[in-house]
Structure formats: structure tokens, C-alpha cells
């Protein structure tokens, strides 16, 4: 192992719960504490840039957002396609091979939209940043897929693809034309041609021919990435909001992490209805319309707290559950982000 090792923090959770903002707030807090932090978002929206108060687009390479004494805050936005192209370029044995892969129609569509490519590239990027000695801490905001856990299986995406037995059957004729295609699969092969036309088959064969000899390289890399994702020092945080559906989703994710033996560091529940304090019966009688609003918000908070309590039970006592109150205004600057950050004490600390 190299002397330098960057701590990784992975934020998981369903869509619309404020994951991107939370990742940014955690990064800001760690930077304010004097660490060199890079936050990675996969969201195509400009949310992170907005929250960080960065004008212009973030790119696929980290850029420095702000200095805090010794601390630094960096940010980048994952470009899955570009990361994939870079990965191919660095793994290929020759420029010609890289070129052949890039020009293949199937590769282009895989790099653009094969399910899991985003997660795969997020993991790849995280792995690159893990070895980048500019940073002490890298925080990644995972893609908002329903199965947020796809992220953990993502490093194997390409290997699985290259291993697929149907593909190997497709590829067989291309390797010298002597290998006999499995008889059992022939009718399927014909049916596929009837369904999607011969062009697709040609693209597939070209794709696998172009990858010839690279399997082992990708397999090794997937193993290294998996090791980093499952390392004890990598921190997992589940983000949720207090509504019923996100809480159910968070409960599911936490259960899956347990099943995969990955230890959860913290749960962050965003957008809690604030506590406005108690009012007397006289106050309620004196201002009935104000009272109606107060009552509505108090009841809502109570339901939220109840849901969160049941989540706490699932999580167990040793995991920190932090709550962040819903704010009266949108977070669009570092100052707003600081308010959130102040509620997130101790979450980015490195485990020993």
C-alpha cells in the first residue's frame, strides 16, 4: 500500500431527500476543520454548484472551491462517459485498440446509457481520487437509483458483461471461425437476429473482438475497487427525509448494508419540521388561526419523530442519527450550507 491513503465517504439514499446538499455540507464541515476535501456529485443538475455558490459548471476533474486556513474544499461533477473513455484509454494495450473500442457503436451506447454505468464510473472515479494525494477525504454522492446499493456491485459491471456466456457464444465465430456455436443457443441466435436485425449482432461481435485481451486488466481493477469500497476506513452514510416512503427506502438500504457486512457510520434525516415550542391553551384560544398552523406543524413533527424512532431501532444504538431541520429558505450559498454543516458533527471523522 502507498503511504498516502484518502478516506472515502459514500452518501446513499433515495431521490429527492437532499443527498447532494448533505454531501456538500459534510465536505464543507470537514474543510472548515482543516482537512483537504473533494466532493463528487453524479447529479447532472447544477444543484451542487448552486449550493457551493460556484459560478459556472463543475467538470469531471476536481476544482478548488474555497480555502479555509489549512482546509480546502474541492468539487467535481462526474461525467460517466468521459471517465469510461479515460479508463479504456489507460487500460488498452495500444492507441489502436482504444480507438477500435471508442468507435464501436455498442461501446458508445454502453458508455452513455447501460444500466449501472453511472454507478460503475462513480466507483472508478472514487478509486482514482482515493489515490490522489491532494485529498484527505473524498465524499461521493451516489446516483439516485432506487437500488442505491447498485453502487456496491458496480465495479463488476464490465467484467460481468464480458463474462456473459451468451456473449462468449456470440464471440466464438469471430475467433478464427472454427469454434462451433453451442447448438442449444443457435435458434436463439437466429431469433435475436430476427428481432433486432443483423447489424446489432455485428456490433456485438466487434465490441468483444475489440476488448480481446483486456478482461484481466478490468478484473484486477474491479477487485481493487471492491477492496477499497469494503475497507474498514470507508465510511457509509444513509441520507433520508422524514416522510414515510424515504424512511422505508432508508430502512431497506440499511438492512442491505448489514447483509453485506458493511458498517454504517451515520444516518442523516433532512427536512425535519422544526420544533416551535409549546403554546398554552390560552394562546390557542386567543389566536385560533395561528393555533391551527402551530398544531398542524406540531402534529407533523410528531409523526416524523415517530417514523425516525422506528428507523433508529433498525439501525441500532451505535450508529449516529443526525437530524437537520427544514429551513425557512432554500440553501444557495456556503453560508446556508454552513447551517446544515453545524448539525453534522462527528460524521466525517476517520475511524481507526
Amino acid at each position, binding site marked *: 500500500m502507498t503511504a498516502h491513503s484518502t478516506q472515502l465517504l459514500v452518501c446513499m439514499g433515495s431521490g429527492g431527500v437532499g443527498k447532494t446538499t448533505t454531501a456538500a455540507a459534510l465536505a464543507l464541515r470537514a474543510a472548515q476543520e482543516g482537512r483537504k476535501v473533494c466532493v463528487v456529485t453524479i447529479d447532472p443538475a447544477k444543484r451542487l454548484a448552486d449550493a457551493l455558490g460556484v459560478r459556472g459548471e463543475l467538470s469531471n476533474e476536481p476544482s478548488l472551491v474555497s480555502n479555509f486556513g489549512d482546509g480546502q474544499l474541492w468539487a467535481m461533477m462526474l461525467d460517466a462517459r468521459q471517465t469510461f473513455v479515460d479508463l479504456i484509454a489507460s487500460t488498452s494495450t495500444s492507441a489502436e485498440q482504444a480507438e477500435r473500442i471508442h468507435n464501436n457503436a455498442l461501446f458508445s451506447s454502453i458508455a452513455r446509457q447501460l444500466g449501472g454505468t453511472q454507478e460503475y464510473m462513480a466507483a472508478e472515479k472514487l478509486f482514482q481520487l482515493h489515490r490522489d494525494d491532494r485529498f484527505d477525504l473524498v465524499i461521493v454522492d451516489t446516483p439516485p437509483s432506487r437500488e442505491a446499493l447498485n453502487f456496491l456491485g458496480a465495479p463488476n459491471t464490465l467484467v460481468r458483461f464480458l463474462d456473459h456466456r451468451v456473449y462468449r457464444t456470440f464471440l466464438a465465430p469471430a475467433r478464427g471461425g472454427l469454434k462451433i456455436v453451442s447448438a442449444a443457443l443457435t*435458434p436463439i441466435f437466429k431469433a435475436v437476429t430476427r428481432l433486432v436485425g443483423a447489424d446489432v449482432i455485428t456490433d456485438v461481435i466487434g465490441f468483444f473482438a475489440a476488448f480481446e485481451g483486456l478482461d484481466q486488466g478490468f478484473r484486477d481493477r474491479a477487485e481493487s475497487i471492491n477492496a477499497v469500497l469494503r475497507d474498514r476506513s470507508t465510511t457509509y452514510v444513509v441520507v433520508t427525509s422524514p416522510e414515510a416512503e424515504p424512511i422505508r427506502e432508508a430502512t431497506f438500504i440499511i438492512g442491505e448494508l448489514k447483509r453485506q457486512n458493511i458498517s454504517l457510520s451515520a444516518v442523516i434525516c433532512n427536512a425535519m419540521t422544526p420544533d416551535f415550542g409549546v403554546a398554552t391553551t390560552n394562546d390557542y384560544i386567543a389566536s385560533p388561526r395561528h393555533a391551527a398552523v402551530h398544531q398542524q406543524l406540531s402534529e407533523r413533527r410528531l409523526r416524523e419523530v415517530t417514523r425516525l424512532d422506528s428507523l433508529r431501532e433498525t439501525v441500532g444504538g451505535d450508529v449516529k442519527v443526525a437530524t437537520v431541520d427544514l429551513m425557512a429558505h432554500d440553501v444557495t450559498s456556503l453560508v446556508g450550507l454552513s447551517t446544515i454543516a453545524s448539525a453534522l458533527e462527528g460524521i466525517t471523522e476517520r475511524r481507526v
Partner: protein
Amino acid sequence: MTVDDVFASSRTIIVAGKGGVGKTTVSAALACAAARRGLRVLFVELDGKPIPTELTSGDGHITTMSLTAGDALVDYLEHHGLGRLAKRFASTGILDVIAAAAPGLDDLLVLGRIKALDRASDHDLIVVDGPAAGHALTFLRVAHGIRGGIRSGLIATQAAEVGEFLADHARCSVVMVTLPATTPVTETVDTALAIEDEIGIALGPIVVNRVLPDDDTTGETCTSEALRRSVEFYRSRRQLQLESIETLQTLLPLSRITLPDVDSPNVIESLTTALLENETR
């Protein structure tokens, strides 16, 4: 325009929206509202999520269905004389393979099945709880996208037919669900414009979900700090909502249905009532 006009405008309604906006709840409420108007409704769930029990324990006006790409493929093969191969397709995992070689194929098969359900005319209204997260556009774009990639074969024909179905305003429309907040509104506007311009699908009203009603406290005196603070908070949240609804209206001048913010176990029931009472603006 009322919710009845929405039901009358096309037989199939595809409900689209990002994760967290309440898409499934709104889809379910639309189905319930239509059933209450006496329509025979088919509710189609695409993500393998559980179907809300409000729909399955109903009065028989609503039929529900979970539709996956695998089911759609088997169904498609059976209708095209390839039925004997259907099982083998499933067991060899070949769908993954073709889907990877022809991205969007799974979406296309699902839309093709919806098109077939629409043509069968067994129902007055088909409510499709659209795909999760940000995939609505990819999903709807597929008939165009796949025709670029697949130039021959049965699927090319299927893509052309699905394209016609989506563009036929009398058969199919898209109802987008959003929240009255900055990011969801921006994303909805972008997606809506792309749906109309690129794909030519008819957009029904935009459903703005979880809108806070007027607090109605103007002019009332209040000496309690707790009450005052809660009203202040409520008002500034509501003000944010009104601002983003205004942005939505400026950038996307379509009719709107606003639904109230409900946090209770019977959300679907409350939203159904709200839909039936609501005049779209």
C-alpha cells in the same frame, strides 16, 4: 379544465416525475378518481414496486397490473410466433444481452405492451405509473432512439408503432408530477419541453403536489412566541412554493392541478377527493 377533461383527452395517461415527488401516490389517486366517476380503470405499475392497497381492495372498477420488461418480451414473442423460444429467452438471461446491445429495448417492449393494452379497449382509462427517477425522458425517447440503432428486424417495426402511439394525442398523454420547489420545477420544465419538442407527446396538466394551503392568519393578533414562529416559518415555506409555481407558470404555460400537502396514512384518499374537487388552472 377539470380532471374529467384529463380523463376524456386520451385513454392512456403516463404519469412521470422524479423520485420523491409522490408520483405513485398521484397515479393511484388519478386511478381512484376516475373509478369514482364510473370509468373502468387499468392501473399499470412499471418498477416492480408494490401496488397501493387502496387500488386492490377497491370496488372492482380498477384492475391493476405489474409490468416488467421480461413479461413484455415473453408476451411479444408469443404474439410473433416465437412463443416456444420465450422460456429459453428468460432462462438464458438473453434479455440482458439484447437490452445491452440495443439500449432501450426493455423500455420499448414495455411501451409496446401498453400500446397493445390501449388498443384492446378493455378499459376506459389506463393510468401508467411511469418509470422511476430521471428515466422518464429516456423511457419516452426510446421509440426514436432505438430506430436510430436498430435498422431492421421486428423491433424496428415495433419502435415505429410505439412512436405513432406516443404521438397520437387522442390515445396517449403524459401527466408530469412535480413539487413546488426550485430544483423539481427546473427539472420538470426541462423534461416537459423535451417531451413536447423532441418526442411530440401531448402533455396533460402539470400536477403540482404537496402545496401548502393559505394559512389564513392575516389580521389575527398573537402574543405567543411559539405560535408566531410557527406561522412565520409556514409563511416563508409557502412563499417559496408560490415563487416556484410562478416560475413554472412562466416557463411552462400549461394548465395545472395543485394538490395539497398531506401527511397522513390515507394520502391517496385525500388526494382523490382533492382531484375531484379541483379545477385545473
